[in-house]
Every structure is written in structure tokens, then in C-alpha cells.
């Protein structure tokens, strides 16, 4: 087990390096570097050179990268070009909203995907499976943001059950907080659930034909026990891996969902950063989301090994 963890950690290093390097390059891809943005259009070449030196932009790229990573490790993400506020502070203010939305969506999608996947696998080629898979393919074709808009029209404007947007995060108003979370989290979660349940169905169907399932059936285990105790356990393993990969989709979806429901998360911060040409903020947001994604995937792989002895004891 220890060896597997070590191996997996070592594998993560080049990915970390490349992806942080990509994020780092954002600032350097901008036509007429960050110093020019900061100095404004009327700056003299001398002033520009001074700012450039001040920001360390006259150093070789690799040196700049190392310095940047050094700052990162101390929790220093730089300052917003526009407001001068430290970016770590801006992110701290916005990150909880994004994480809340993503985690809630993940939970909703699992709650929906598990029963749907099991039902359509146990009723394969039946009417129920046909019904579920029709709904799934329709749902997969509906873009997240349109689903959100339709949900607002139906549940907020016509039925008036839920607020059309914004986030209530008040310990004294738990009901209001949950109400504000329902629409965005469900919109985001359902998008994921459609793909997940389909994936679970295919896995279950494959496992259903395995020898150990036939053995279980042959020795008279009840159908319920075959599905839940024997088949599901094995079919869930790949689902966990996919969940890690899907996390990227979920983060991307979260940014869009935030925008539909005016949810004050990291996505909005980055969009503002793009329109204000505040690239340091965009970079900070990117870094946060990408690192989050890499860490989640690392955790998923480790959990996987913990659950499945074939992996941690495997010869590879």
C-alpha cells in the first residue's frame, strides 16, 4: 500500500509541474506583458522598464516560475491589479460558495444516479430501462445553463417556490440558505447524474455476467442480495474513478451554473477578472480550481486502492 501511494504521488509531480506552468504562463501570454497593463498606455519606456524590473519580469522565464512557485508555497498569490487586494483573500471569500455548490451537486447526483443505474440494469430491455435511458439522453442534450433558466422560469417565476438566484449563507436562516442552494445544486447535479447512472448501468450489466454472480445465483442467494452485495460492490469501483474525472466537468459546470443563478463563487471572480483585464485574479482562480482537481483525483485513486486490494497488491 505504501509503495502504491508513493508511486501515485510521484506520478502526480509532473502533472502538477505542467499544469502550474500552464497557469503561470497565463500572465505571459497576454500581448504586451502585465507591466504594460499596470503602467498604462502613456508610460515612458524607462518607467515601464522600472516596473518590469520591480515585478521581476526581466528575469528568465524559468527563474520567474521558480520565484512564483516559491511565493505560492508561502500562500502568496500576488495582488489584484485592479483593487490591490491580496488574491488569496479574494479567493478565500469566494471559494466556500463554489465548494458548497460542487459538493451539494455531487451528493445530489449520486443520490439520483445510484437508484437509476441499478433500476435500469435490473430491468434491462424492459420498459423501465427504455424510459430511464430516454430521459437520460434527453437530459444529456440539455445544456446546463438552459436547464437552469428553465428551472428559474418554472420554480421561481411561475410556482414561486424558490428564489431565482443569489446565495443566502446565514447560520440563522438555514431554511433560506438551503432554499437558495436547491436550484443551482440540482441543475448541476442532474447534469452529472445522467452520465453517471448510464455508466453504472453498463458496469452492472458487465458484472452480471461474471462467474461469481452466477455462482451466487446458483447457490440460491436472493436476487436482492446478488444485486446489492455481490454485483454493486464490484460495479461501483469504476464509478468512483469516473467521479474523479467528472470532477473537472463539475467544476466547469459550476462556473456556468454560478453565472446562471448569480451564485457568488470563484467563477464570477474569474469572469470579472477577464473583463477587467485583471489577469492576476484569473490566474489565482485557475490555480485554485486546477489544484483542487488534481488533489481530488489523487484522493480518488488512493480511495480506490484502499477499497480494491487488487490494485494495491497488483504486480504493476
Amino acid at each position, binding site marked *: 500500500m505504501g509503495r502504491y501511494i508513493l508511486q501515485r504521488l510521484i506520478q502526480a509531480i509532473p*502533472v502538477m509541474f*505542467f499544469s502550474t506552468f500552464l497557469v503561470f504562463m497565463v500572465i505571459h501570454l497576454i500581448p504586451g506583458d502585465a507591466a504594460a497593463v499596470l503602467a498604462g498606455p502613456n508610460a515612458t519606456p524607462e518607467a515601464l522598464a522600472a516596473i518590469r524590473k520591480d515585478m521581476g519580469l526581466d528575469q528568465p522565464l524559468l527563474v520567474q516560475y521558480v520565484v512564483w512557485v516559491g511565493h505560492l508555497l508561502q500562500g502568496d498569490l500576488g495582488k489584484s491589479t485592479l483593487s490591490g487586494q491580496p488574491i488569496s483573500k479574494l479567493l478565500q471569500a469566494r471559494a466556500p460558495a463554489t465548494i458548497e455548490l460542487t459538493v451539494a451537486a455531487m451528493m445530489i447526483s449520486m443520490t439520483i444516479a445510484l437508484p437509476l443505474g441499478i433500476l435500469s440494469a435490473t430491468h434491462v430491455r424492459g420498459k423501465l430501462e427504455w424510459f430511464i435511458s430516454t430521459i437520460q439522453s434527453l437530459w444529456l442534450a440539455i445544456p446546463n*445553463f438552459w436547464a437552469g433558466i428553465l428551472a428559474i422560469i418554472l420554480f421561481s417565476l411561475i410556482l414561486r417556490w424558490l428564489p431565482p438566484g443569489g446565495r443566502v449563507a446565514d447560520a440563522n436562516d438555514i431554511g433560506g440558505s438551503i432554499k437558495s442552494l436547491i436550484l443551482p445544486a440540482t441543475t448541476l447535479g442532474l447534469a452529472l447524474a445522467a452520465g453517471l447512472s448510464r455508466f453504472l448501468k453498463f458496469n452492472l450489466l*458487465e458484472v452480471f455476467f461474471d462467474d461469481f454472480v452466477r455462482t451466487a445465483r446458483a447457490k440460491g442467494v436472493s436476487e436482492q442480495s446478488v444485486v446489492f452485495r455481490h454485483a454493486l460492490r464490484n460495479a461501483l469501483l469504476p464509478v468512483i474513478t469516473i467521479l474523479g474525472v467528472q470532477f473537472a466537468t463539475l467544476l466547469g459546470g459550476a462556473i456556468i451554473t454560478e453565472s446562471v443563478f448569480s451564485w457568488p463563487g470563484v467563477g464570477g471572480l474569474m469572469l470579472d477578472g477577464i473583463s477587467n483585464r485583471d489577469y492576476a485574479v484569473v490566474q489565482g482562480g485557475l490555480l485554485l480550481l486546477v489544484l483542487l482537481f488534481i488533489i481530488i483525483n489523487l484522493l480518488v485513486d488512493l480511495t480506490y486502492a484502499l477499497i480494491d486490494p487488487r490494485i494495491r497488491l497488483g504486480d504493476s
Partner: protein
Amino acid sequence: MAVRSATEVVASPPLVAVPQKVKKSPHPLNAAMTRTWRNPLGKFGVTILGVLVFAAIFAPFVSPYDPIVQHQGKELLGPSTEFWMGTDELGRDLLSRVIWGARPSLVVAVMVVLLGGLVGICAGLAAGYFGGWINSVIMRLFDALFAFPAILLGFVVIAALGPGTTQVAYAIAIAVVPSLGRVARSLVLKERNRDYVLAARCTGAGSGRVMFVHLLPNAVSPMIVNLALLMGFSVLAEASLAFLGLGTQPPTPSWGAMLNGSRAYLRVDPWMAIGPGVVLAMLLLGLNYLADALREAFDPRRVNAGF
């Protein structure tokens, strides 16, 4: 003893098969295409895609109004005989805007397929064929790119190049490179030790010739199946980025931007959100179904096995 009459001899069936009755088996690619068309899902997908491509190409002729002309005094109307899908907040005809909006969607999809396909396939072929450090570098790059959700890659590219349709296409093309590259690479790994590759090498074919002339044709069928999925992905990503205000810039119509614009007027005129959304969802549904039909057509074994 009865002697066979001459007529009887003539009437006996000829020993050689009649040439026109022999069916030449069609090229596997054509056969797969026919199977796709015979599948109702495939027919649906091809029809939707065909209608929208037609609408996009002939937009000036099929749209009832100019998509950016503002009809004053007729703002925020619901559907009527004059404006079939209604009008937006500036009194522009929504149907015309939806028709013209097919252009950025499809242009981006085609650009992504061409650009992403070219780069992804070349990188994947090289990684699989050469192996060693080339493989390691390319695969690690793919891993790193994979760590970026497509939307975030869009943010990076648009932060650098500014918003616009072409920039969006570049961003999405970069996002699809790893998945296409992996398909190409796995194919090479499977095929590179086959006899025909060895034979080609023995006759003096260089790496480039082996990769592009001998290996690549094997990738055609998995690539075609991927193509429909890829187009669906691009259309969705383009609409998402346009929705966030990063894609096609106003007043040029695009579905994503139209949906974003509708949000402020949902109370007054929810119809603004219906037209573009329905067309976008239909295209995505059509492409998904087309991908399913193509997969079945190219790999009938999997379907017959019961999955």
C-alpha cells in the same frame, strides 16, 4: 428410349453464375454509413444536422428578417405570425437570430474537428510510434491538459487573446487534443507490431509514411465515431463560453449569448429563452444520437452482445 429434346437442354440452368446476380460487398465504410442511416437515431441526427447546416449556409435567404435590425415599438414580443419566435429586448426577430446563430456554433465545431483532430492525431501517432521520451513528454502534457476543465482552458485562451468566435474555437480545439491523441496512440500501440507495418518498414518506408499511410487509415472508424461526439462537445462548449460572454460578440447572434441576454427579461418575456434553447438542445440531442448510431454501425458485435 426417350431422347432429350433440344429445348430441354436449353432450358436447363446455366452452370456459370449469372454475373449481374452476384452482389459485390460494399466498402465497409459505406456499409457502416448505410447502417447509420437505417437506424432511426442516426436518421434523426443526420436530419437535424443537415437542416441546421443548410440554415447556417443559406441564412441570408431563409431568415425572415435581418438578425440585427431593430423593429422599434415591437420589443419583447411573444411568438406571433409576424415574428414566429417573438422578438428580443431591442425588437430584433428571434427566429432570424436563431437561424444566423447556427453559424458560430457550426463554424466552431468544424474548426475544432480540423484543428484539434490534426494536432491530437499527430501527437498521438508520434507518442505511440516513437515511444520512449517522446511518449512520456506527450502523455504528461495530455495529463496536464486533462486537468483543465474545457471551460477553464477557454478562460486561459480568452484571457490571452480576447473574446471572439475564433478564439473560442482555438480554446476548445486545445481541450479536445488529449482525448483524440489518446485514441490515436492506443491504436498505434495495438497495430505497430503487426506484419503489415513490419512489411512496410522492410520495403524502406520511413516513419512518416508508416504512420500516415499505413497506420492512420485504421483510425478512420474509431475517429468517425468520435467525430459526432466531438462536434457535440464543441457546440456545447461554444454555447457555454458565449453564454459567459466570452464567445461571439454582440450584435452577431449566437445561441449562448442569446440565452444569456434572456436572463434579464425572464419575468417579462420568457419566450426569449425558449427558441435558442430548443434549437441548441435539438442539435446536441441529434449529435448524441448520431454518435450512438455510428458506434452501433461500426461495431455491430457490441450491440449484438446485448449491451
